[in-house]
């Protein structure tokens, strides 16, 4: 995985320049901010989920979105992805609104939702290679196998995913985290269906990502600790 790290550092260096020299970024007053959400409001149907939501996320930070069922966590994450338009407010990435950035933003962002986004008919290996390919990364078979094995899928790499157990399917989806150079991870209940061992693995992955100056926004109803990082939290009520 050294190629990946290299890749990441390169990207980091580029983005550093972008921040320093991009005039737009100086508006906010901070030099190092990456994701800035200001005064966001979102509603579904007749129902206002949240409003006046503002926060910033810096490299190396992790944030848990908390709230009861139906409080709007998923809606918030989907708005951050640009799937839903907010009623008010703006989401700014590296000083530009994500509305304008579009594909540039997507190149640096990874979203994992309630759905696993894997194809039942394809094997875990094919699934991983294709989903990495869609996000612009060509994985060769060795790399993909290594990622799947790290996710505890040894011996299951070539089975069609439809025969896998619920937790194994989730692991296939999560293997994308290992094959991504995105700076911002947006994870909606990544721990669903995972057993204790897998939860620990995810915690490790998050810690590694943060150590690489990555950013994470996630939701979960289960306890989750990440070593060596302070967990910020955002409560929706």
């Amino acid at each position, binding site marked *: 995985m050294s*190629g990946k790290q290299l890749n990441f550092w390169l990207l980091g260096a580029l983005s550093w320049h972008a921040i320093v020299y991009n005039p737009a970024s100086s508006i906010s007053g901070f030099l190092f901010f990456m994701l800035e959400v200001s005064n966001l409001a979102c509603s579904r149907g007749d129902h206002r989920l949240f409003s006046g939501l503002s926060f910033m996320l810096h490299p190396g930070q992790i944030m848990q979105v908390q709230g009861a069922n139906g409080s709007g966590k998923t809606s918030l994450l989907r708005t951050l992805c640009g799937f839903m338009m907010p009623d008010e407010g703006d989401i700014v990435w590296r000083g530009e609104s994500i509305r304008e950035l579009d*594909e540039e933003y*997507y190149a640096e962002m990874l979203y994992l939702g309630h759905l696993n*986004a894997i194809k039942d008919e394809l094997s875990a290996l094919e699934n991983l290679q*294709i989903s990495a390919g869609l996000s*612009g990364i060509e994985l060769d078979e060795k790399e993909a196998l290594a990622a799947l094995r790290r996710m505890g899928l040894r011996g299951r790499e070539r089975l069609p995913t439809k025969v896998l157990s619920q937790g194994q399917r989730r692991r296939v989806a999560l293997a994308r985290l290992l094959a991504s150079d995105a700076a911002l991870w947006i994870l909606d209940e990544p721990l669903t269906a995972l057993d204790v061992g897998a939860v620990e693995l995810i915690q490790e992955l998050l810690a590694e990502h943060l150590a690489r100056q990555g950013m994470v926004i996630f939701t979960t109803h289960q306890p989750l600790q990440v070593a060596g990082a302070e967990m910020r939290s955002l409560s929706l009520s």
Partner: protein
Amino acid sequence: MKKSTLLGLLVLVIRRDLVLAMRRRADVLTTLIFFVMVVSLFPLGVGPEMSMLRKMAPGVLWVAALLSSMLSLGRLFSADYLDGTLEQMMLAPQSLSMLVLGKMTAHWMVSGLPLVLMAPVLGLQFDMPVQALGVLIIGLLLGTPVLSMVGAIGAALTLGLRGGGVLLSLLVLPLCIPVLIFGTGAVEAVSTGLSVASHLSLLGALLVLALVFTPWVTAQALRISME
């Protein structure tokens, strides 16, 4: 691990959809069987008079092709939509239109191309002259991609709606009528001695138009549907 190019992405999407289709061989075959069935039912319904059958042949073949590609369109995006893959495609850092074009191409290769290859055999059943068969095939080659592409717009618009399959055909069939008319017109021009080329070039023009506009329109429709 290296970055992929735009063309690489197109190839990836096409290959992915083809592999998926091969895993579900039943789907591909049912489209084809449906085509054969619709065409073969006509002699049963209409009676065995050869002169009439010969006259009907191009129309029946074209209508059957139109209907069978409609039949398979429902699945173009809906499987990806339900399992969350489409979401991920929309987050791909490349142009969505390109992905859509890939999916259209794969769809045509799976559901349009087999019909084109099957058509001459069925045409012989209706005693069509060889010359007319040639024109029929060229027409289908030019026309079926248009059906796939225009259909994709409808598939994207009806994504996630109940009764999507039928609604889809309601939206798409009227838009496909010109293809049907030029396609059959070309075949009939052979027997009446009129200009075949003009019909075919019109079909070609439709194809170019569709190639230029439909991927973008479909991508927009997908964005709307995913909101």
